[in-house]
């Protein structure tokens, strides 16, 4: 059962197309696995539809129709090939690669500390987006950190506690500069999360800051 979902503020921004590709991807992965949130999103998308229907029509360029016909007659550019499984960072047994992540290029796993690895994800649609897969072993924790801006986390497998709540597969978390937390992975297996960070994380402590700078978070 999924317990933690994006709030209406974030869902509305997503419905309105106001989220950049990076955060939109994290929400997209959550929505792919959460029928509840798809149902919550539907009336917000319908709001967009209602606004389109109610819009004052604006005259189009005189060649708009002709150009549209040209495009439908032109051969369609083939869709990009999905990332072959061999090129994706290896996942724990039983964890499926979320299809939506095929839109991103994934690096290999990089060591971040004992029992902690990360892979950098690069989205052509927003190449500077700080998008990561984090893979952390049971009992391990990220160093205590706060955020100058938004951080979005979608749990793909395993679970963690961060002093506020427990987050398990399918759960979504959004934190901002009001939150200072230390996620600790629960026993039972590795925890893999998709994470987006709007700006640099502020790690506390000299060693942690060194790691933070090195991983580019």
């Amino acid at each position: 059962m999924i317990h933690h979902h994006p709030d209406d503020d974030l869902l509305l921004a997503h419905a309105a197309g106001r989220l950049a590709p990076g955060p939109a991807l994290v929400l997209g992965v959550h929505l792919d696995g959460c029928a509840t949130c798809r149902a919550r999103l539907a009336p917000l998308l319908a709001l967009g539809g209602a606004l389109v229907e109610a819009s004052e029509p604006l005259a189009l360029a005189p060649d708009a129709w002709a150009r549209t016909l040209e495009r439908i007659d032109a051969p369609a550019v083939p869709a990009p090939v999905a990332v072959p499984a061999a090129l994706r960072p290896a996942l724990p047994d039983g964890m499926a690669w979320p299809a939506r992540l095929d839109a991103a290029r994934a690096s290999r796993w990089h060591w971040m500390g004992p029992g902690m690895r990360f892979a950098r994800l690069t989205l052509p649609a927003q190449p500077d987006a700080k998008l990561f897969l984090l893979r952390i072993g049971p009992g391990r924790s990220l160093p205590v950190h706060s955020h100058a801006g938004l951080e979005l986390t979608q749990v793909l497998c395993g679970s963690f506690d961060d002093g506020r709540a427990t987050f398990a597969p399918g759960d979504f978390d959004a934190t901002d500069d009001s939150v200072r937390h230390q996620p600790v992975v629960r026993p039972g297996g590795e925890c893999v999360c998709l994470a987006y960070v709007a700006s640099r994380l502020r790690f506390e402590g000299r060693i942690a800051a060194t790691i933070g700078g090195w991983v580019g978070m």
Partner: protein
Amino acid sequence: MGRVSHSWARPAGGPARPRAVPPHVGIVTTPADLWMPTTDELNEWMRAVAVAADRSAFAALFRHFAPRLKGFLVRAGCDDAQAEELVQETMVQLWRRAASFDPARAGLATWLYTIARNLRIDRHRRDAGLDAASEPLDELGADAPGADPDHAPEARLLAAERENHVRAALAALPPEQAQVLRLSFYEEQAHAAIAHELGLPLGTVKSRIRLAVTQLRRLLDGMRP
């Protein structure tokens, strides 16, 4: 704004057969109920495009939606060239994906809106000439109530009603809440715009948005049969 008014007679009975007139001629601005296609007509034209690659049906859909999409996109902050580009690409996606439009899941305006919004987010892919990647229907609730094929007519009614209900709910909201929702669609920096328009501190804008959405959901719940 440059609207052209044009009068043409509508066939008296039977489903409207769209004429093969280039849509840029005659962007109609007559009173809505005289000329607006019905949901059934829109769905028929979509079927004709999907099943028979019917270009006059496509022209009718273009005539109805393209100017409204452009009006919406310009209002939402696109410049004229961007809006034109997005409208053309959205209509191209309509043509290519017509077979995947399911009136039981969403109204056509919502489906098109979602395509346009995905295209807009995915600017980079468009600039590279790549085909749109995301499938709007995934977000429109594959397992929403009413998706049962055995109840197809009711499902279509529900989807069409949901759009009407959303329109009615928007009209029934307290003006400030309706404004909060509209600004979220129209403004690049929605939170700042809401704070400015309503004279609120930036920190309270999120909670106002949540309130407005909660009230919208309450109104929609109350409208369910």
